[in-house]
């Protein structure tokens, strides 16, 4: 089974021109281990709201590609978000869900995706126009690159192993990250917004 870190490494250079919003825990720690960038915002709590934040960004900045790096535990806490995304279908929003079937950051307890809940099917039934599930780094890289290059709301579920770094706290302050992210957006040229 593939590792989330390998997926992140494979698309890391493709994230450069996008606005990226992540969930809390292992995922942002891994992304930061590859190198923090000012266009990355890590929502280190408020589980479930990364996708809502991505929607707010995408609707406000129609010329910017927005990528949400979600997780099964977080998305399960805000499944209604899929119906809200689908209702407005921002063409510039890419929703990636790393599904490790586990609440890894809080002891590795299995989530409902480990007992059959299919997040791609839920996304599709909610009305997300394009969805897929991938389980190899090659497939993941291909579908993410295609999604970044083309318009259209899409949910990609990436089935990954339930492993992650030992520590999740990094030396990047939450507020430092938040203000830097907003400044980065302010620095974008008006036509790219």
């Amino acid at each position: 089974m593939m590792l989330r870190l390998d997926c992140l490494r494979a698309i890391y250079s493709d994230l450069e021109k996008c606005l990226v919003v992540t969930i809390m825990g292992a995922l942002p720690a891994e992304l930061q281990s590859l190198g923090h960038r000012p266009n990355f915002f890590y929502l280190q709590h408020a589980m479930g709201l990364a996708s809502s934040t991505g929607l707010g960004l995408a609707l406000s900045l129609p010329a910017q590609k927005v990528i949400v790096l979600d997780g099964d535990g977080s998305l399960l806490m805000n499944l209604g978000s899929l119906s809200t995304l689908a209702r407005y279908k921002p063409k510039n929003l890419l929703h990636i869900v790393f599904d490790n079937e586990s609440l890894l950051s809080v002891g590795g307890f299995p989530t409902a995706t480990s007992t059959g809940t299919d997040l791609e099917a839920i996304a599709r039934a909610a009305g997300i126009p394009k969805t897929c599930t991938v389980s190899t780094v090659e497939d993941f890289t291909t579908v993410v690159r295609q999604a970044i290059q083309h318009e259209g709301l899409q949910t990609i579920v990436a089935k990954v192993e339930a492993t992650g770094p030992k520590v999740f706290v990094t030396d990047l302050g939450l507020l430092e990250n938040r203000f830097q992210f907003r400044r980065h957006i302010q620095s974008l040229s008006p036509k790219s917004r």
Partner: protein
Amino acid sequence: MPVSLENSQLIYRALKSCGIRLLSALPETWLVHLIHIAEDDPQMTLVRLAKEEEGVGLSAGAHFAGVKSAMLMQNHGFLAAINGIVSFAHLYKIPLLMLISYRGAFGERDPWQTQGGNVTEPLLRALNIPYSFLDAPTSVEKRIHQAHALAESSLQPVALLLTRDLMWVE
């Protein structure tokens, strides 16, 4: 429906004059005109939510993008949004302009609204959220501008409670 159209228009005009361009909302009786007005306004992005907590993420995303936003909800929706308010808006210093219909207070006839009415102000105080009331047409515009100014300068959630006196025509 005895919801005041005139006062709803007054509230909406004040929001517009603050520069609000994105409104998240979940329908509730007192908000019906406000939502319809927003729907018919091509300058406004209206986002209809499944649950009020999503609105915290929407407003944060809009704030990062430099777009001013407000949230329309019932006080039970405020209860449903509290984790997002604390673990996103407070934690990351996100300005939120929350317009909350104050159901379950004096004059309420629907039994199911009454518990939420009891806890609304105690919770706002416990969460250290500055709040005031929209209770008379003469002060609506000024108070919305003041609430918006405080949310933007303090980078925190600020609440305006929409009262029966303003919203309901008996």
